[in-house]
Every structure is written in structure tokens, then in C-alpha cells.
């Protein structure tokens, strides 16, 4: 009997997809999947994804999020259960929390995994190194292991039949000393979709020739229901905010579709998007490196091509809905 626990991250009361991806991965590795949450949330989503048990960690000191207190609470619960692995989504929260829990448990921490498998009864992970140039299969050497899973690399799948999870509450022993860092507020970026949460990203580079032309990128992203991304060059030039930067010193993304417009594809840029499921590019120079990693490309002028793409996509969406 193997047991794997999954940390359920919620933002604004909603379970993050990365957590459901981890639940699905856990189901293929273990007989028993335990969902571990801070506070009590809705049970039905977790049931539909096949969780067998839900443990709600409750304590007055957890009302304001503290990575230190959360790690302590999670570790205290794990210590009293024979859990072989603990999975996190490799989100901003997961990447901060998971290594802390691992230290408290004397467990190995395998970050940003893109595949998990079982070998001789032990869970092994595949993870990218050197911005994806190499992949390593990593074998933990500890009795318990903490993993974080790169978002959108595992598919979240509902079960044919929902489970009927056993629900329990765990009260950790915490004091103020565990809360020496707390989140006091969250500021959202004015309703814009973030590249880290988008299924589709439309990115613009220096080929857009000026900040005023990014209205084209924004419109294309909007008809696709995607987020706007940017290359380092245009962020450094002050055309776009750093929160949109994809690549080294920016964000690493793996959307279903990454559409690069007027981006040549410097190695620093490729480092942040090469694990995208589908890569498409528009560039007037057929020899730019982005075409070497692209699935689909158009050699042409972004200012002529993008408006035509917008038209086609609008027509396609209308056909889809009529």
C-alpha cells in the first residue's frame, strides 16, 4: 500500500490547476491519494479528481498565510502518517513552500519535475537542467520525498466516478515564532491574464518596432483568450513590464501554444519557452533561431500578418459558436 499526499493550493478560494495536475499524477503512483489543504474548501472538486482522503489543516495562526507556519504545519502532519511522497505544483507558492517542508522532514526535494515514474517501487522524477538543454532522471535517497511539478506538464484528469473522500481536520502546534514572515496583502495585475497561468501566450519582440505596436499583440492575445508575453529586449527598452518577460531573468512558461511575433529567439528567450506544447512564430527573417524550434512558422511582416491572423481567428471562433 503506497500513499502519496498532494498539497492543495487555492487562490481566492479556487483550487489551482497545478494542484489538480498533481492529484492526477499521484493517482498513477499510489493506492491512496491524500489531499492536504490549509483551511476547509469544497470537497466535490477533489472527489471528482479521485482523492481518497482530505485533510484540512486548521489553526488561527494560518489565517494570514506564512510560508514558515504552513511548512511547519504540513511537516507535523506528514510525520504522523506513512506518506511516501508529497507533491506540490511548482507555482510561486509551491516553489517557496516545498523545499522548506522537505528540510523539516529530512526528505529529498526534487523541484520542477516534468515526469514521474516508478522504478523498483520507488518514485523517480525527470527534471530539466540547464534551462531544458538536458533532462535528468533523479532517484531520491530518502524514505520520504517532496516533489514539485512544473505546471501544464501533467494533465489534470477527472475520474469516471467521483470518490467519496474521508474528511478530517488536523490542528498543528504553532506559535508566533513560526510566523516571522506573513503575507499582508496581494495586489493583482489589473485583470490581465498572467503568462504563468495562460494556455496561450502571444509574445512580442523587437520586431514590433515600438511600444505603440503592441496593441496588435494585445488584440491577437485577446481573440485567442491568451496572455501577452515579451522578450527581454522590449522589457529592457521599457516597452513592456517585467511581469510579461519570458526567458532567462523572466518567466519560464509551458503553455499549449506559444506564438512568438518579431522575436528572433535568442538562447535566453528559448530557455523560458522551449517546453511549450506547440510553438509558432512570425518573423520576416527566415534564418532566425526561433524557426528552428517552431512547429509552425510564417516568414513575413508582423504588421501585415497579425491583422490577417486576427481576422481568421475571429471567423474560426464564430464558426465554432454558431
Amino acid at each position, binding site marked *: 500500500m503506497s500513499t502519496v499526499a498532494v498539497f492543495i493550493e487555492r487562490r481566492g478560494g479556487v483550487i489551482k490547476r497545478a494542484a489538480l495536475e498533481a492529484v492526477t499524477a499521484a493517482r498513477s503512483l499510489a493506492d491512496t491519494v491524500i489531499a492536504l489543504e490549509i483551511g476547509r474548501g469544497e470537497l466535490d472538486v477533489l472527489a471528482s479528481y479521485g482523492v481518497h482522503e482530505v485533510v484540512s489543516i486548521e489553526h488561527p495562526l494560518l489565517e494570514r498565510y506564512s*510560508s514558515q507556519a504552513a511548512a511547519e504545519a504540513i511537516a507535523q502532519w506528514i510525520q504522523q502518517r506513512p506518506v511516501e511522497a508529497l507533491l506540490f505544483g511548482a507555482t510561486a507558492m509551491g516553489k517557496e513552500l516545498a523545499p522548506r517542508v522537505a528540510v*523539516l522532514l529530512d526528505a529529498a526535494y526534487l523541484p520542477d519535475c516534468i515526469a514521474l515514474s516508478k522504478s523498483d517501487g520507488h518514485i523517480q522524477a525527470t527534471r530539466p537542467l540547464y534551462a531544458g538543454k538536458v533532462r535528468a532522471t533523479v532517484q531520491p535517497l530518502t524514505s520520504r*520525498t517532496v516533489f514539485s511539478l512544473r505546471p501544464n506538464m501533467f494533465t489534470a484528469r477527472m475520474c469516471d466516478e467521483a470518490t467519496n473522500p474521508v474528511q478530517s481536520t488536523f490542528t498543528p502546534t504553532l506559535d508566533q515564532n513560526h510566523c516571522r514572515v506573513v503575507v499582508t496583502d496581494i495586489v493583482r495585475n489589473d485583470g490581465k491574464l498572467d503568462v504563468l497561468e495562460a494556455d496561450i501566450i502571444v509574445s512580442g519582440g523587437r520586431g514590433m518596432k515600438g511600444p505603440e505596436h503592441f496593441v496588435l499583440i494585445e488584440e491577437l492575445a485577446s481573440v485567442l483568450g491568451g496572455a501577452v508575453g515579451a522578450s527581454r529586449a522590449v522589457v529592457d527598452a521599457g516597452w513592456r513590464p517585467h511581469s510579461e518577460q519570458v526567458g532567462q531573468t523572466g518567466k519560464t512558461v509551458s503553455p499549449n501554444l506559444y506564438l512568438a511575433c518579431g522575436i528572433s529567439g535568442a538562447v535566453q528567450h528559448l530557455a523560458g519557452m522551449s517546453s511549450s506544447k506547440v510553438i509558432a512564430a512570425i518573423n520576416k527573417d527566415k534564418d532566425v533561431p526561433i524557426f528552428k524550434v517552431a512547429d509552425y512558422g510564417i516568414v513575413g511582416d508582423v504588421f501585415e500578418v497579425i491583422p490577417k491572423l486576427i481576422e481568421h481567428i475571429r471567423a474560426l471562433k464564430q464558426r465554432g459558436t454558431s
Partner: protein
Amino acid sequence: MTILVCISYVPDTAAKIGVTSDGTALQLEGVKYILNPYDEFAIEEALLQRERHGGRVVALTVGPDAAKEILRTALAMGVDSAAIVPATTFDSFGVASNIAAYAKAIDASLIIVGRQSIDHDSFQMASTVGALLGFPSISVVSKLEISGDRVYAERDIEGGKELLEATLPLVVSVQKGINNPRYPKLPEIMKAKSKPIETVEPITVPPRATMVRFEVPQLKRANKILGDSDADIAEFIRLLHEEAKVL
């Protein structure tokens, strides 16, 4: 206040990294190494905090002898002293354990690292070192203000920012946007060449994980590159819709 800034010596972003034919080892011969790009922000932040609050800045690296090169960069930028833990075989946990031990030895109250090192990209050093020392930590910080022993920080999360309050001692990892790293001037670069670098006795901890196999991912990209005629644009849309099924 003693500020410890930890920096790493990593293969250049553009370096070609290979794998031996049996897949059991990496091929790193001839690869050029650089100061990890995020660590420039870490050094700059340490210097800025020293300018505001006084104290000293110590730069530390865990790595081979050649990594002294990046400590000299840190010295040229203005850190007060530099130290190396000579080690090449540690996993991330081993590196963190050595950082934590050294931080304790020099009684550091603020430890600053880069958001990630571009070799293993694991984003874990701030949390791991923090947990080992029993200190709070904040990862991916884009703004840091210290007032007495209170700390106000901002960190980037999906779709926004978190505002945080913490107390010293603290470990933070920083990222682009927090500051503009200074360029060392030639006289400082020359002076840094002859400054002493402390060698710290490594502590050995059992590894927690081992890399058993390596592979270079095979690019399985459709690579259908079209022109810009109307027919090509229609085909491009069809491919995304029907073949790739992403529209």
C-alpha cells in the same frame, strides 16, 4: 548588520551541454562559466542595504577553485570580503548546508541569493537555507525595505504581487527589477585581483538524491515554416486548429 550574499558559478547560458553516450554523465568540458545572472541582483541588493543600514557584506560561493573569479567580481562591485567552500560534488542540499553553516559562523542576519541558479533552476536556496537555520525566508523578491529588524517585501506571484512583512534574521532570493546592478570600474577590478579570499572547510552531508541518467531532449517539432501569402496564412491557421488542435 552582517549581510551574506551567496553566488554561484554556472555554465554560460549559450553553452552547449552534452551527455556521454551511455547517458550516465554530463559533458561539461570546454564550457565557459559565468556569474549566475540573478546573483548580480543579489550582490547589488546587499550593497544597497549596506549603504542604507551600515554593516558589512560577505560574498560566498560553493564551487571549484575557478569560481574565485566570480568572488573577484563581487569584490570589484564592493563587497567587504569573500569566501569559498571548495566543493564540486554537492547536491543542492549539500550546498545549502554549507551556506547555512557559514551564515551561522559569521552571524549573518540577512542572507541574499539569486532567485534561481541557471544550472539546476531549482528556486530552492532561500527556503532550504532558511529552514536549515530556522529563519523565515521570502523567494523571488522584487522589493526589499528594512527598518530596524522589520522587513517589508514584495514578491512576484502568478498574476500579481504578494506584500509581506518579516523580521530579521531573514533569507531572501531576489530577481530582476529589484535594482540595477552596478558595473565594477577598472581600478576596482584591478584591486579585487589581489584581495584575499577565505577558504572555508566544507562540511559533508549525505546526498539526498542522485541523478541516475541524463538525456538531451530530442526536438520533435513539426517545423512547418510557411510564407506570408493569404493561402499560407489560411494554412497556418488550419494547422494550428486541425493538426495541433490548439485553437
